[in-house]
């Protein structure tokens, strides 16, 4: 049933007549219509609901607000109605309104900036302390682990090695191969200008072995295993699996945390080694095609100019990066709260933070090693 609004102005009396069904679908049209009425000479307003067949609660709120609005403009407003159902709806809304009005407490917003920033700093500091606590627990459990070979959970470590190393070989190999190709291709163009073709070997050798292969591997692993750790452990926390483990006396640190960290620390150097091979291989192909350096010549030159220490520096970064990625990923998983949004948030944070930590760690390595003259 359609609803209608008609109004009738007689001297200083205005009567607004609603008819049909007044529901939340029709309110907006009426609001617009009412705004077009000029009230200047009106002092008495009647909201006539006699012909109203149905009123829903949203429309009742609208009517009561209308009444209030007109009253504050010092027009006398009355609602005219005999229909009991309509009246009871209006009554219900009025009653709720008085309840909610009495419940509202106005918060003092002044001086909140200082308070909220102190709370934020406090929270940040607390988060830092929690991470340190996690760090301490990891170290303690690790020590316990090393006390006896029987404590080591070989099965879990092997499982994690398969998950985060063997299954990652393909993507790590492909990424580093492409990086090798791109670097060689870009530098080939520059080197050709100077006729310094053969120096591509020095450049590729040092940059890939020392920096690029470890970094690319770390970034791929952070995206792949770091996020997986957070999501897995976070989901286990939400389903109370972690609580169940604790009540059964299985320490999550020995069962979940340490095996993952150790597995990743073993996996990372191996993956970096594969990334080294594939990166150099990619560069070699481009040098052959683009610069006409034969594979034999490339490898000969490689052995001559690229010192083995560059290779070891790249490899030695592996366990450090792995420790950072695994511990940040797992820590983020453990602090997941009891809602699904928190998993997404912490997974994002774990990847971003672990990549950041890896780059900071790499920078520290760079500074330390350069100063040591290695």
């Amino acid at each position, binding site marked *: 049933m359609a609803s209608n609004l008609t109004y009738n102005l007689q001297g200083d009396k205005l009567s607004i007549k609603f008819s049909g069904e007044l529901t939340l679908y029709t309110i907006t049209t009426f609001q617009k219509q009412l705004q077009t009425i000029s009230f200047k000479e009106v002092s008495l307003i009647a909201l006539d609901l006699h012909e109203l067949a149905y009123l829903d609660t949203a429309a009742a709120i609208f009517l009561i607000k209308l009444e209030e609005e007109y009253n504050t403009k010092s027009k006398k407003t009355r609602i005219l109605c005999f229909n009991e159902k309509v009246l009871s709806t209006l009554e219900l809304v009025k009653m709720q309104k008085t309840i909610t009005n009495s419940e509202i407490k106005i918060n003092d917003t002044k001086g909140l900036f200082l308070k909220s920033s102190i709370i934020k700093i406090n929270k940040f500091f607390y988060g830092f302390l929690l991470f340190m606590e996690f760090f301490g627990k990891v170290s303690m459990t690790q020590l316990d682990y090393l006390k006896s070979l029987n404590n080591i959970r070989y099965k879990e470590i092997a499982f994690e090695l398969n998950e985060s190393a063997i299954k990652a070989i393909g993507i790590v190999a492909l990424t580093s191969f492409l990086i090798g190709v791109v670097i060689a291709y870009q530098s080939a163009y520059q080197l050709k200008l100077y006729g310094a073709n053969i120096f591509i070997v020095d450049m590729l050798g040092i940059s890939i072995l020392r920096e690029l292969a470890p970094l690319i591997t770390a970034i791929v692993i952070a995206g792949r295993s770091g996020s997986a750790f957070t999501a897995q452990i976070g989901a*286990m926390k939400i389903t109370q699996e972690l*609580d*169940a483990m604790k*009540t*059964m*006396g*299985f320490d999550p640190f020995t069962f979940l945390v340490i095996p993952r960290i150790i597995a990743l620390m073993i996996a990372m150097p191996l993956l970096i080694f594969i990334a080294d091979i594939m990166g150099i291989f990619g560069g070699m192909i481009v040098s052959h095609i683009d610069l006409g350096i034969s594979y034999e010549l490339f490898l000969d030159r490689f052995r001559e100019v690229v010192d083995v220490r560059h290779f070891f520096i790249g490899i030695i970064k592996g366990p450090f990066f792995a420790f950072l990625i695994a511990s940040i990923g797992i820590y983020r998983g453990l602090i997941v709260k009891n809602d699904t949004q928190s998993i997404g948030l912490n997974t994002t944070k774990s990847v971003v933070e672990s990549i950041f930590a890896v780059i900071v760690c790499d920078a520290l390595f760079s500074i330390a090693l350069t100063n040591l003259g290695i």
Partner: protein
Amino acid sequence: MSIISVRDIHTQFDEKIVHKGLNLDINEGEIYGILGPSGCGKTTLLREMVLLQEFTHGNITILDKSLSNISQVNAQSLRRDWGVLFQAGALFSSLSIEENIALPLVEYTDLSLAMINEIVKFKINLVGLKSTDSKLYPSQISGGMKKKAGLARALAMDPKLLFLDEPTSGLDPISAREFDALILKLRDMLGLTVVMVSHDLRSIYDTLDRVAIIDEMKIAYEGTLSDVATSSSDFVKIFFK
């Protein structure tokens, strides 16, 4: 003889006070219920009993071991003496049902695999699961089955104490009554002491020997259900009317 005694427990999260001096005693061999309106801290109290959460002040003694400042060794031995069933079962999702039940046996005992298999089969039958279900993973079974499997896992080490967090919530009425009957049967057969948090009135009347009702941060009533009307708490009046 009281097997668990809770003395003057205070719990506070940040600024929110949950418990303000709780006292209760749970006797050996009884099925004890912790009841109260939602948000009153029933589950929190249960979590404090099973060492998942720390209380701010007071003390809980379980099997003659005091939980405040408990040593690692004592805590580990307590954990082998109780079984806990969580609200949604909390089965390890990477393990099948039988592996879930076998896990504590594999970790804590030097039993042979054949022996462990026998024990697992027995527990699966005991809780009323079919032996054909044992190879399924938690994601493949229904909520009721998860609870039964969780119960079988909690019973794997033959604990003296069983903690149940809302055992019948989310079950259909028939499964819920079956579960109640199962708890009663297990208590009589194995001589368990059962502590449970529940909202289910039928289950409360059918199974519980004694109850503690937490309301407004304190124990509003402790005792048998027949005398519950003597309590003056508003919650009790509405809940048991």
